[in-house]
């Protein structure tokens, strides 16, 4: 189980008193140690005796926060869009909706691309998870889930399994079989267990591990085969709504975003929160870009005319374009470097819940509360020229 109030991730002999019990993974002077909960409380009281009061700790945390702000401000010598003035403007985009995937009976809450760049999986409030062929619109698999509001779904890197979950507080993995008659629901494997709804899930670089985020305020890394909790990530003080892995194959960091307005960067191996960004002011109605090496916000994407919140976003392949799905039923496309809006995609008849660019960068899929998914692509340049010459 993974929970805000239950911090134990291992079971074994305590480093202090040697009794075997659930251990809390804590850091003493940056050294990771495992103490049982009793020893942690004892240590806390001893800290008190040495003159370390709650007040003094609070003072120290305030002064550290101030120091952090100063350090970050020192490096803020220029704005990203100022540096980006010298590069050329993004030429007019010709992205058009090419496919509309209909079939869900209720709001589509999440979707994910398969690495083969044509299949996708989507999950809906009606409790169904559908695997589509994006080219032919064929529904290859339809899995009924025991709960409604399937808020998260993910495709395994091999393309042989999907993971999904939502209000059932679990993340389940379904191996996809080529046999159309086989009942997929029978092969379901429950991997993750949280104490509140599952808001996001993604496979790591292999089919063997899944990373989940939950309304219980934690993220967790699980082994698919055994269902064992490998690492838990505590630090958010409210529901965690989304997560994303760092793109590098050797990388082992991921970022999570929560209702506490923070974006936290985590080290997957140690469970340590390595960086935290907190400049969002309210429910998100703008997009912010944080540079990890500069450790600060470097761009904000917003317009006075945009008053609705953005629920999901994704970068194009080169990182130059940012696609944001908004609650006003549109997708705004931003120039990441210059900070201005380049284009918009219309068509959905209700709010956009998820936006994802395909693995090869050729298409962007958007899922919406209007029960459909739309796959959009850029028009080929030569094709445009032919059109113009005919008119």
């Amino acid at each position, binding site marked *: 189980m993974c929970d805000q109030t239950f911090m134990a991730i291992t079971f074994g002999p305590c480093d202090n008193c040697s009794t075997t019990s659930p251990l809390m993974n804590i850091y003493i002077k*940056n050294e990771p140690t495992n103490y049982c909960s009793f020893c942690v409380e004892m240590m806390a009281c001893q800290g008190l005796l040495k003159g370390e009061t*709650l007040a003094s700790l609070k003072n120290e945390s305030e002064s550290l*926060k101030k120091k952090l702000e100063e350090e*970050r401000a020192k490096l803020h010598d220029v704005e990203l869009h100022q540096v980006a003035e010298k590069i050329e403007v993004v030429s007019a985009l010709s992205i058009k909706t090419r496919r509309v995937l209909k079939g869900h009976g209720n709001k589509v809450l999440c979707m994910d691309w398969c690495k083969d760049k044509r299949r996708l999986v989507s999950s809906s409030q009606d409790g169904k998870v559908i695997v589509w062929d994006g080219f032919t619109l064929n529904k290859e698999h339809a899995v009924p889930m025991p709960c409604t509001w399937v808020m998260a779904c993910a495709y395994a890197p091999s393309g042989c399994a999907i993971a999904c979950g939502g209000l059932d507080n679990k993340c389940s993995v379904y191996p996809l079989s080529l046999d159309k008659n086989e009942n997929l629901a029978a092969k379901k494997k429950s991997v993750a267990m949280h104490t509140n709804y599952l808001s996001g899930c993604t496979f790591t670089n292999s089919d063997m591990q899944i990373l989940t985020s939950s309304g219980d305020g934690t993220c967790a890394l699980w082994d698919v085969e055994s269902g064992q909790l490998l690492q838990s990530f505590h630090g958010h003080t409210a529901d965690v709504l989304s997560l994303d892995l760092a793109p590098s194959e050797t990388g082992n960091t991921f970022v999570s975003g929560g209702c506490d307005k923070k974006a936290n960067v985590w080290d997957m191996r140690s469970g340590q929160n390595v960086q935290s960004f907190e400049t969002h002011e309210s429910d998100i109605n703008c997009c912010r870009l944080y540079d990890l090496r500069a450790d600060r916000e*470097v761009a904000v994407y917003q317009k006075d005319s945009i008053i609705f919140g953005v629920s999901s976003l994704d970068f194009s*392949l*080169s*990182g130059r*374009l940012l696609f944001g799905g908004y609650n006003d039923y549109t997708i705004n496309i931003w120039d990441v470097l210059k900070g201005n809006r380049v284009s918009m995609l219309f068509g959905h008849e209700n709010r956009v819940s998820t936006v994802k660019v395909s693995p090869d960068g050729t298409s962007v899929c958007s899922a919406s509360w209007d029960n459909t998914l739309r796959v959009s692509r*850029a028009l080929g340049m030569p094709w445009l020229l032919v059109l113009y010459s005919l008119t």
Partner: protein
Amino acid sequence: MSSKTPSSNNIAHARRTVQQLRIEAGIERIKVSKASADLMNYCSEHGRNDPLLVGIPASENPFKDKKPCTIL
């Protein structure tokens, strides 16, 4: 989120916060100008291969609308 009232738990929580802040204050940072330059370089290098940015030739577009074919 449940809040715990025992004072020792607050101490443990405050100590964890201080620990976390110490780690964060200690990380190495680079200037925004350097970070921005790197971002720009990355985007320029990969921009040519970005299908959504530059478009793809119609012949390679599997999503293009199929025209009715006439058999001569």
